[in-house]
């Protein structure tokens, strides 16, 4: 297996607006790719095309050698692709009608067909890792944003995906809660799982990323090692962007 994730020539339009203009990306197993870029550049859309929450108009997506053609795919292919990926949302999107434990167990029971007892045992272990053991019987609305997002990470992790997609996981959080979530993501990255993270947290990117990708206007403008990209980017557009957010 050469690459864990391969995006080939991804095009996506909403109506007449072309949002992604032929994105290519190859990601090896265990890589942590951080995507930077101004608002509206298509970062969220790119992540959403990977698990077909939005389906791209053109191109192909392959995750751990399972390849799906974007303009010619079946429902079962989409389901299978989604089972190889997991997503952490900007607004957490925890199931409001379920407790934290039930949120985490849901995928194991419904998708992986675990029995309840087993599912609970595994879920408790994960909740312990993200520091939510004591909150497992709370409903999402009873938790802070940081706790909700950690639960969102647990819900994604438990599916044992080949790649986790993070869409600005900390940008809906109060500043004092950002740290706990970033630390959780950092810990996840050390387990060797492949990750694609959209974020504006530059110091986090420096520490965790194996590669930084800069996107603008639906294209990848530049990519490279975090030390090069974040300190000495070549493209003037990248330089400008970094100057603005640091």
């Amino acid at each position, binding site marked *: 297996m050469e690459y864990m994730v391969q995006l080939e020539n991804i095009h996506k339009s909403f109506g007449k607006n072309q949002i992604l203009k032929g994105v290519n990306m190859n990601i090896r197993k265990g890589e942590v790719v951080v995507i930077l870029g101004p608002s509206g550049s298509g970062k969220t859309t790119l992540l959403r095309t990977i698990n077909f929450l939005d389906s791209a108009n053109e191109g192909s997506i392959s995750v751990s050698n399972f390849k799906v053609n974007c303009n010619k795919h079946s429902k079962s292919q989409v389901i299978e692709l*989604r089972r190889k990926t997991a997503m952490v949302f900007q607004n957490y*999107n925890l199931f409001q009608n379920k407790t934290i434990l039930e949120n985490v167990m849901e995928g194991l029971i419904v998708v992986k067909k675990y029995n309840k007892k087993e599912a609970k045992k595994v879920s408790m272990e994960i909740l312990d890792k993200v520091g939510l053991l004591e909150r497992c019987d709370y*409903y999402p609305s009873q938790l802070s944003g940081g706790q909700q997002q950690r639960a969102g990470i647990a819900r994604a992790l438990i599916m044992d995906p080949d790649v986790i997609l993070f869409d600005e996981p900390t940008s809906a959080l109060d500043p004092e809660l950002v740290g706990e979530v970033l630390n959780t993501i950092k810990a996840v990255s050390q387990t060797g799982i492949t990750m694609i993270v959209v974020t504006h947290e530059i110091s986090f990117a420096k520490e965790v990323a194996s590669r930084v990708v800069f996107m603008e206007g639906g294209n990848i403008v530049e990519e490279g090692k975090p030390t090069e990209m974040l300190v000495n980017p070549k493209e003037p557009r990248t330089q400008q962007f970094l100057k603005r957010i640091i």
Partner: protein
Amino acid sequence: MTNTFKPETILGYIPGVLKALPITMEILFLSLLIGSILGALIATANLSNNILLRKMSSGYISFMRGIPTLVLIFLLYLGLPQIALNIGIDMSNINKSIYIIACLSLNTSANLAEMMRSSYLAVGKGQCEAAYSIGMKSFTAFRRIVLPQAFGIAIPTLGNNIIILLKDTSLAFAIGVIDMMGKGRALSAASYGSNRLEVYMATGIIFWVLCIILEYSSKSAEKAYTKGRKQSAS
């Protein structure tokens, strides 16, 4: 004219009127059941991607909400058999209650469809997407994630619709069904109308008490169902 109003006799008529409670309940229950099934179909059509289905269901909802229930009852009870006779079908043997149940089902299905549609839409899109993102199929996501939340959102409106429906069952007397209202009318006719004020007050009190019970049940159902959880996610 002397004052013949005897308020102390009102309560005495309650048992007599209550004898028809089972009929009223039967009409209520069956109309609610059939109306819900119909309403679910119409709501589904209204939320579909098919423009024709959407237009048709919107038209149905608009018509059924616009037409007075009594007019619908007369249309169906008096008009339909006439049309049927013209094409050789004799509908004179059909039980009158069936007309009432049919009319109330049609009428309430529009309200219930509207309720289901808006409750469904009130559950954030993100809930479904989160379910898809962990590999759930769309029907499973609907059944386990969206429907339970939509139901919680719908409870107060559902309670209201049931109360409206209960009150509408009293229109059954108009075509001679002996529901509680019909029973009250019969009791009053038996004494040539001399006690009609008392009898109708007794009937009114029964409906009122039933509504209070329904309202209370709806409130407690909502509380029990949504305890701890916030409804309507972003």
